[in-house]
């Protein structure tokens, strides 16, 4: 029995996936607590399907006048199924002119990517998108093992 348990523990893909979600939730709670958040104002440009998770182009734009009185302070990106779900925090000022940025991210398999935008008035906005990834960024053995591909 102990042997079987050890074997099961070794095949940890589903367990790991659950742990990842919990971590993503913990990151978001730790950052924003239960502050109210509204859906919208954020445009996420991420492919629906990525051949490889090693480098996936991501573009985010937040609708804001970017004035001293009304601007985006920060954008946080969370990839739920990554072993470290927090991907980037981007900080803006009125001198940014436009609250938008592009980068390339790693994605460990199919997942939901969540984006949060904190405004200068303290309001919190969120948007999310789903992405399918043919080959995840985390190479064998531990993460992709057990996936039927």
């Amino acid at each position: 029995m102990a042997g079987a348990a050890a074997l099961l523990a070794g095949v940890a893909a589903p367990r790991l996936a659950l742990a990842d979600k919990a971590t993503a939730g913990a990151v978001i709670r730790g950052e924003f607590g239960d502050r109210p958040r509204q859906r919208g104002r954020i445009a996420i440009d991420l492919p629906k399907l990525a051949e490889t998770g090693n480098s996936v182009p991501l573009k985010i734009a937040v609708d804001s006048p970017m004035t001293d009185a009304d601007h985006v302070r920060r954008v946080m990106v969370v990839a739920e199924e990554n072993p470290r779900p927090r991907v980037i925090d981007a900080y803006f000022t009125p001198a940014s002119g436009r609250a938008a940025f592009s980068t390339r991210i790693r994605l460990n398999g199919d997942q939901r990517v969540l984006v949060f935008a904190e405004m200068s008035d303290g309001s919190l906005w969120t948007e999310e998108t789903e992405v399918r990834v043919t080959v995840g960024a985390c190479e064998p053995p531990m993460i992709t093992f057990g996936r039927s591909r």
Partner: protein
Amino acid sequence: MAQTRIHVPARAAAGEIVELRAMVSHPMETGFRIDESGNNVPMHIVTDFACSFEGEEIFRARLQPGIAANPYLSFYARATRSGTFRFDWVDADGSVYSQSGAIIVEG
């Protein structure tokens, strides 16, 4: 030593919003990778990026292992006057990489 590459437009009109691009050559080791001999490759990333114009912050980012190797960022700045944009990257090993680019603002 990591190589950096930036793009700053040479000229802009006053008030124009310009796109800036920055890249640094870096493996962004996640700490999750296992090498051919089965050893865990330790995490080694660029943790911070910042762009300023004549000392005023334009954009900055806190990077994580979820950013792909050779981190690339593009973002914007409102061109108000001629001057120099400074780009800084901070490596987790303590190194700082910097590059600057000038812009001429007309009108």
